[in-house]
């Protein structure tokens, strides 16, 4: 169980990991995530299921090296076993035919966007995807997204690929050009905040997939709580997708920094150990 079958690399920091998890492969739907622990001393971290192969009994994770846990995971090799892996968790994306979908993905957020784009396309929507990253090598999975989109617009902060500018610039051009019935956004919290502000201006219903800190991922601890429409909700069981216009992103950004000092210390200690 939980054996790594295949690994790959999209960019300097973004890796693909295919893990054997037959039951999860069978049960998962777009929008679901898993929680894993790389080893006995590891922490429990949430990762979206980017893809699954029921026949092979595998799920695909796309992971960005951020700190200790993700670095440990990205350094694992085929044949290695992940100590613990549980899922699928969270609520699946509500996929139905609504007309035209604007799908915005930023950085590693493009990975969880993929199954959602695929889902919306398969039920007959017109799908326009906007992919954004700081520079060219941070745009991942472009070909796979293209397969399920009617149009793909790429935005980079430095203009090294596609159009120069942030995601909202590309998104606004499309919104002005044609009628959008629904928007979905996954990426860094700041990006989701500004995308939500933009679509609110145009009154487009928008779902954002939130990356809160989590511990159990089963609704037991409340570490993942967010304010949505003034109410406290738990991202792991009520989300991870919420009405982006109701989410208190500023609170979320503050909460994401909650363990920053502890994390930095842990990461430095980890690097030191690695170099010994």
């Amino acid at each position, binding site marked *: 169980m939980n054996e790594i079958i295949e690994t790959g690399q999209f960019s300097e920091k973004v890796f693909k990991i295919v893990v054997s998890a037959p039951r999860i492969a069978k049960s998962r739907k777009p929008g679901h995530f898993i929680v894993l622990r790389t080893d006995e001393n590891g922490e429990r971290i949430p990762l979206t299921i980017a893809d699954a192969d029921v026949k092979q009994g595998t799920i695909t994770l796309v992971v960005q090296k951020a700190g200790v846990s993700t670095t440990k995971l990205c350094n694992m090799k085929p044949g290695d076993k992940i100590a613990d892996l549980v899922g699928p968790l969270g609520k699946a994306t509500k996929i139905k035919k609504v007309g035209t979908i604007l799908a915005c993905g930023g950085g590693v957020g493009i990975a969880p966007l993929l199954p959602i784009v695929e889902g919306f396309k398969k039920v007959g929507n017109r799908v326009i995807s906007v992919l954004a990253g700081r520079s060219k090598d941070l745009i991942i999975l472009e070909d796979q997204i293209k397969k399920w989109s009617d149009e793909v617009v790429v935005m980079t902060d430095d203009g090294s690929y596609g159009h120069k500018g942030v995601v909202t610039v590309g998104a606004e051009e499309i919104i002005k050009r044609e009628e959008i019935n629904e928007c979905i956004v996954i990426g860094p919290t700041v990006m989701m905040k500004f995308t939500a502000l933009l679509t609110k201006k145009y009154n487009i219903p928008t779902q954002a997939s939130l990356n809160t800190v989590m511990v159990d991922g089963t609704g037991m601890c409340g570490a993942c709580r967010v304010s949505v429409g003034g109410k406290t909700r738990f991202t792991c069981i009520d989300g991870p997708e919420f009405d982006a216009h109701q989410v208190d992103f500023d609170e979320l950004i*503050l909460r994401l920094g909650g363990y920053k000092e502890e994390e930095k210390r842990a990461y430095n200690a980890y690097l030191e150990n690695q170099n010994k």
Partner: protein
Amino acid sequence: MEDRIERRDQEWRKELRLKTKGRERTAIQRAEMPMMDPLERVHYQDREVNIGLDLNTAGQEATRCMDCVNPECVTGCPVNIDIPSFIKNIERGEILKAAGVLRETSALPAVCGRVCPQEKQCEAHCFYLNKLKKPAVAIGYLERFAADYEREHGVAEVPEIKKNGIKVAVIGSGPSSLSFAGSMIKKGYDVTVFEALHEIGGVLKYGIPEFRLPNNIVNSELENLKKLGVKFEKDFLVGRTSSFEDLKEEGYKGFFVASGAGLPSFMHIPGENFNGIMSSNEYLTRVNLMNAAKDEFDTPVFKGKRVVVVGGGNTAMDSVRTSKRLGADKSMIVYRRSMNEMPARLEEVKHAQDEGIEFNTLTNPVEYFADEKGHVSRVRVQKMELGKADASGRRRPVPIEGSEYDIDTDMVVVAVGVSPNPLVPSVLPNLKVSKRGTIEVNEETMQSSIPELFAGGDIVRGGATVILAMGDGRRAANGMDQYLTEKYGK
């Protein structure tokens, strides 16, 4: 019942009763529990506070018990353990036999001896307390003694079990499930326990800290169950990883749901989502399940210096005492009623006081304030007074206008209750649940509105005790056995 009376008439019991005069028995002082020094123990999260009685003291304490004709203590125990019978076995030095008596009704006597609120249950009904106005027989200490002795000296026998090949699934691995699994495996069923987390044991592992209930005690019970043939699947969330339908297709004929009361409550007051404010479940899970306080583990945890814990139950006591052990200078309880209404076990409150925990009773938080980084820095509290009794029979706390004041803090743990885990009801629309979200069952058989599904523990009671959860597991095992026997034959 029959059993107990017959046992009381056994020759050795009669002799033992005559051996020591009543007056001599009642003259003995109640045994004191030897424990680690408070000043020393506050440095260790994983060292048990209570050390346990030795053979001599246990024998002496057992001698106090009058072997009453109508042992009221038994009526106070939610599973009606034959208390005098196990105690008299201790008095005559047959400790393993004493443990055997406990095992007839309790799957985890070493756990219950430690965590039962004895002062409200068995001991509250003891003849000593009620008729002699003397401290009750220390039933809890003796129960723990017998169970520990068995673990250390006994050879766990693995009985011959005739398998019937019928597969049953147990959802969750807390005390209710463990008790159910133990009963069912002995009845010949093929039992698999599914647990969502990466450790087996439910609250016994992720909630109750090791300074009250060491993990090795729970682990040794798990080993016994494994030896009997119970299978455990961790990292498996039933209803998600596989549906109930999937499990039926795999041949499972009966389901026992004991998924607990995992969902933490918050107070929904301003500022409650600032960093440094967390539920007791989060705090205890980080420390107990994830070992966050130990350097070699990756999970982080705040080590607050001025810690405020809101609540007065066992979870509040466990959290506040944990914070002290993780290096807080000041750890305090903020509780809206008075000391008398605190639901926590009396012993834990006493231990907390000895460890220097501050108690702010009749006080309730109303708002939190944070520093510029969004980390909690102050809590505004309001004084309360006790009004009329409410539905729970306890006097309702009423805020005193204009009594607000601020307490400086850098970490807050909210321990104001939990509600039933919503997952199983949410995936089974035909399952009858109460307004509170608890699964409705027939109280005798623990069968739910779905015939092959039985339930027990906190998911049925909405938050109870280890012993009640275990009692449910046992009853459900009998109920399900009867149901499956009728359906599939022996």
